């Protein structure tokens, strides 16, 4: 389903979104987030024990530019599930707290889940990584 185009970065982003059921575009890496909003979003995913792919948008400004053009979403992070934009840090936190995130991810809401979204301080097991072909 590849089409000829002059925009390889946008194609790579669209491909990564299509190929990974759960993919987070963020600043930094899950192990070392470079922004509080990205850190909080990673923490919510890790609290649900969901494997996810992560793409660091920082190495090349064109990644962010093309991603936002593609998604219609101006800020980072951006979480996609099954090819659909779920939201940024605020929506993910809100959905985590209400249990909707677990539902969207087909994950178990931990019974000892804190009422508020996790702060993102604890290092957690490394999530599934994807090769970052975008930089």
């Amino acid at each position, binding site marked *: 389903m590849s089409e000829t185009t002059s925009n390889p970065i946008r194609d790579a982003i669209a491909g990564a979104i299509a190929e990974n059921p759960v993919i987070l575009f963020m600043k930094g890496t899950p192990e070392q987030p470079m922004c509080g*909003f990205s850190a909080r979003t990673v923490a919510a995913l890790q609290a649900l024990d969901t494997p996810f792919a992560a793409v660091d948008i920082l190495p090349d400004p064109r990644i962010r530019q093309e991603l936002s053009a593609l998604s*219609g*979403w*101006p*800020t980072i992070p951006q979480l996609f599930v099954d090819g659909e*934009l*779920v*939201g*940024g*840090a*605020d*929506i993910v936190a*809100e*959905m985590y707290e209400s249990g909707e995130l677990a539902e969207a991810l087909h994950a178990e809401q931990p019974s000892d889940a804190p009422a508020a979204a996790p702060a993102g301080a604890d290092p957690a097991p490394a999530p599934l990584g994807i090769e970052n072909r975008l930089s």
Partner: protein
Amino acid sequence: MPTAAELKTRIEAAIPGASAEVESPDDVHFTARVVSESFAGMSRVQQHQLVYGVFDGELGSSIHALSLKTETP
């Protein structure tokens, strides 16, 4: 430099029936709660996109961060 009051005015002017509460400790990072009938039937992503659209091109530059909560009345 935008102020919280300015963001409130612009959100309320751009989105029909919207009522916004906007706070900012530094006029760079903002937290907004927006209530509007217009959000009915929209996904959260669409609701936030509607608000982001008010500040097209300013998010990430003069408005460093805008934390959003959207609701219907």
